């Protein structure tokens, strides 16, 4: 075997991103096994990982983790480049933009729960817009907005609480260093 002339040296940050993305992908795949009454209403458990990465390592790493999760998760589920993939991608991008703004809210007042709910609303908002413009070019898609926004509040709250609790536990057991999520 010839030795490769190109050597990629992963940094500690790369390892961290890969580890968090792997955790997020596991949650995405596990969540796909949960039967749900309505297409589009999902707990979005993988976003817990995004929230933790955002709080501990900043927005840039959260972007990496969230987008890797969308791509790898859709590949694993056979959804890559299917309509569902574009819906998740648009939701992920919109929620990352909102998270990028939300982290600048005063930390004393707004924690992971706020971030989670705001991101959830950005998620459904972008998905509804994409669905309206591309998949279902009719205003009928907005008929389910109340259901989606109720789901955003409930799952946003739950995911935010789980993320806040994991962050609190990570803070107390911080000896583990970068071993998060």
């Amino acid at each position, binding site marked *: 075997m010839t030795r490769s002339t190109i050597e990629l040296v992963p940094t500690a940050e790369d390892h961290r991103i890969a580890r968090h993305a792997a955790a997020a992908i596991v949650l995405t795949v596990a969540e796909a096994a949960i039967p749900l009454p309505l297409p589009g209403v999902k707990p979005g458990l993988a976003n817990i990982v995004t929230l933790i990465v955002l709080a501990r390592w900043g927005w840039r790493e959260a972007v990496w983790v969230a987008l890797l999760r969308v791509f790898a998760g859709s590949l694993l589920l056979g959804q890559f480049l299917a309509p569902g993939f574009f819906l998740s991608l648009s939701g992920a991008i919109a929620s990352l933009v909102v998270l990028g703004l939300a982290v600048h809210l005063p930390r004393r007042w707004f924690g992971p*729960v706020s971030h989670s709910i705001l991101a959830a609303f950005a998620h459904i908002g972008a998905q509804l817009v994409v669905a309206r413009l591309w998949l279902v070019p009719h205003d009928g898609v907005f008929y389910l907005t109340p259901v989606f926004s109720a789901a955003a509040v409930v799952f946003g709250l739950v995911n935010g609480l789980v993320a806040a609790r994991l962050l609190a536990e990570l803070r107390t057991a911080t000896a583990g260093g970068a071993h998060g999520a």
Partner: protein
Amino acid sequence: MTLGAWLHLIRPGDVLVALAGLGVCVQAVLLLWQGGAPDGVVVRAGGKVFAELDLSRRRIVEVPGPLGLTRIEIEPGRARVAADPGPRQYCVRQGWLSRAGAVAICAPNQVSLTLTGRGADYDALNY
């Protein structure tokens, strides 16, 4: 972990964000799910408007047509053709109409019942 410990994780602003989210839900319901509520009925006989009524209280309207009397029953928020002399009874079997734009047509007796409303999704609805 007790309930109190979970509540401890919520910061004041989080409550505001959650309440704002609930507000969006309520607004969405009011905006999107109330559109089909009717606010009145129009009864036509022989192509002419026989009566325009609101849906606020119970009443019974009897409309004369070529075959006899069609009896229309109105209740708050809904209306139906209760009895009709037509042979096939399609308009009677439609039952209660409760969405703006819904129509029951008793063709043999030339009587129709239409629910009107500002937020009507359709010009006419039939089943």
